[in-house]
């Protein structure tokens, strides 16, 4: 006698199996449906993930970003003097955390490497249960982490990332950028370069060989060629090359009278220092004084390059010497905490943390899709860059951009750059789908 004789047919066995499987799987579905979105905070705290480079080429900026995030957490939790919360046009935040939950944070080291950054962000999302990941200093890293956050269903608030691609072809619905981009650098710099160096110039580009370098090279070349400048050569250099001498010597006799350094961080310090050592700044070519341009500047970089930055033009997202109430409140707060003024990297990260908190408060939830809607099209002021728009189409902030110059006679150890022009928002605004930026946000992901 077989079991089937007792009325247990193969069909009924299979049905039973399916039912059992469904039963076993049920708690998983229930678990998922019990939460509206990934890492929904249930206790009295909410955790944010600060993923910054603590080692590698951009470690200086990463350290400053982390200081800014820690200060932002203090202010959101109602500690300290409140910083920019006092000047921020939105008054949704009450100084009692976010949605009544005290803000806690975890940190990670991106090592300025995409794989390490993704591993670090993954750990934060899966192990530490963060509701948002933020950080940057390398566009390659920012794009990789943004993509991971999109897949996981977490908001990514980009820190310092200047590549067009972050909110261009690699834009994502779950990713938001406050920092300006290479296109905006070109649009802001071009008129100043024309006023100082004229329309008849020959430019030589040295470019860091990764996404940020490529887009900056393209944007600056487009902007300067529109002035009538000629691009003599575009040379790619490996990230972290160290000794740039073999790339600088060909510039000497190339016929170029402008060297554009599409480098940042340690690369920038090294290439600018070496370009000056090779006498480029004192050279005369085509009957004109040779000029060096650093399209993306920062004070930290200026410190590393020392005297070599004097008289050299570039652009920044923000500078501590701005006199608006928001900037002054932030500088005062940051300076009192750490003893020196914040960098532009610190500024953008601080603002991003506050904007996230404010959006959650306004949306009434940490759910990425609802929170994202609160950021899309959001107009605000009082954060150091004048009236600012978080554009819905590409999640890029539009605000004024600064053109700066290495100061000839600094009055203090921090007074290395002078703001030459505050370029209005209209001049650096572009259509979201121009060829350099064409991309799709896709749909937002709540991760549940």
């Amino acid at each position: 006698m077989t079991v089937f004789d007792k009325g247990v047919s193969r069909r009924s066995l299979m049905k039973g199996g399916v039912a059992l499987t469904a039963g076993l799987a049920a708690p998983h579905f229930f678990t998922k449906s019990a939460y509206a979105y990934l890492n929904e905070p249930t206790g009295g705290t909410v955790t944010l993930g600060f993923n910054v480079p603590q080692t590698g080429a951009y470690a200086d900026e990463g350290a400053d970003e982390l200081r800014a995030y820690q200060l932002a957490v203090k202010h959101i939790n109602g500690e300290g003097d409140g910083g920019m919360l006092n000047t921020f046009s939105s008054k949704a935040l009450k100084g009692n955390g976010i949605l009544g939950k005290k803000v806690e944070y975890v940190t990670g080291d991106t090592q300025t490497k995409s794989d390490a950054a993704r591993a670090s962000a993954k750990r934060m999302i899966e192990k530490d249960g963060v509701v948002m990941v933020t950080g940057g200093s390398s566009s390659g890293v920012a794009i990789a982490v943004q993509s991971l956050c999109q897949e996981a269903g977490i908001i990514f608030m980009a820190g310092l990332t200047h590549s067009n691609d972050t909110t261009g072809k690699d834009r994502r619905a779950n990713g938001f950028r406050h920092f300006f981009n290479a296109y905006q650098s070109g649009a802001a710099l071009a008129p100043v370069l024309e006023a100082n160096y004229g329309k008849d110039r020959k430019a030589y580009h040295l470019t860091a060989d990764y996404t940020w370098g490529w887009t900056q090279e393209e944007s600056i070349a487009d902007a300067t060629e529109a002035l009538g400048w000629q691009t003599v050569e575009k040379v790619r250099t490996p990230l972290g090359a160290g000794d740039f001498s073999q790339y600088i010597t060909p510039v000497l006799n190339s016929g170029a009278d402008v060297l554009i350094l599409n480098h940042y961080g340690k690369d920038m310090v090294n290439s600018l220092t070496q370009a000056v050592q090779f006498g480029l700044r004192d050279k005369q070519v085509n009957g004109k004084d040779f000029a060096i341009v650093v399209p993306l500047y920062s004070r930290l970089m200026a410190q590393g390059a020392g005297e070599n930055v004097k008289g050299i033009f570039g652009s920044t997202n923000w500078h501590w010497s701005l006199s608006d109430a928001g900037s002054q409140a932030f500088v005062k707060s940051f300076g009192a905490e750490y003893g020196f003024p914040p960098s532009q990297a610190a500024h953008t990260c601080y603002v991003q943390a506050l904007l996230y908190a404010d959006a959650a408060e306004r949306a009434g939830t940490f759910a990425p899709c609802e929170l994202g809607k609160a950021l899309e099209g959001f107009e605000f002021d009082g954060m150091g860059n004048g009236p600012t728009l978080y554009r819905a189409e590409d999640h890029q902030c539009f605000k004024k951009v600064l053109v700066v110059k290495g100061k000839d006679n600094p009055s203090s150890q921090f007074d290395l750059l002078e703001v030459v022009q505050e370029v209005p928002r209209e001049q650096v605004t572009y259509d979201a789908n121009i060829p350099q930026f064409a991309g799709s946000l896709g749909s937002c992901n709540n991760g549940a």
Partner: protein
Amino acid sequence: MDAFVLQMLNGLDKGGAYALIALGLTLIFGTLGVVNFAHGALFMLGAFCAVTIQKLLTLSKKVKDESITFFDAYKEIPYLETWFGDTGLVIIDYAVPISLLAAIPIMLIIGLIMERGLIRFFYNRSHAEQILVTFGLAIVLQELVKAIYGANPIPTPAPEVVAGSADLGILFGVPGTIVYPYWRLIYLFFSLAVIGGVFAFLQFTTFGMVVRAGMQDRETVGLLGIHVERRFTIVFGIAAVVAGLAGVMYTPILPPDYHIGMEFLVLSFVVVVVGGMGSLPGAVLAGFLLGILQSFASMNEVKSIIPGIDQIIIYLIAVIVLQVRPRGLLGRKGVMEG
């Protein structure tokens, strides 16, 4: 013409650094038979000798910076400036040359400690084990430096008097066309002098003669009653000094960080292999040769024909040389064979 001369100088300059590190590597390999992956770390420690001396010379007192009104900011005024005025500033300005003198005894002691404390226990072990232990040592040293000095590069400038560039075009009757930084020229002559000094030491002293004999046939030299191991220990110390001095002198060219040694180590091993394992002239020749080739490969004219050649040229040459001359350019029979 001018572009050629500039790239040649560039190549010689880079080659000088490669040759100095490769020379030390070969000295250690030729005498002790040890494949020393910690040699890059010795270069890094030399660079950090300069950083340390600079930090000591610029020990400062904090004075409130009155130009900053938003918060309490402080300026750092070096004690040397407070005590000796302009003379103090000149001493600070000469931090790198001063470090050069200080690095000789420091690196010698580090080398001797390294050899006596660790390396000697691995003389009779396989090359794989030697590589593992020395590589591990390099990582430990790197992490120690990172823990003390942080991960960021530390600017260590050359003295002001040699901060600019020399107009070498004057020598060729075309002023302004060949401009080359003074410090890089100094580095080139320095590396040639150190290489010459090491060769002269090995060639014209009794000590050097014994070392050379030991490199050829260690057993026979031992049978003659010469304590060859003690001399080899000193050779390790000398190799450490050579790597350390190369590191000190390189700091104005490239602000050092904890990883600087590793960046040079890989290239230097390629140099040693191309030159021929155990061959001192081979190491020097290959160092300069690869430096020059790397420099010329970075020329736009070359890169327009073979894109990306600047980043692979050294490894490409290594493959070709090893195909044509498996023992390297000046390699001897029987080294690392069988």
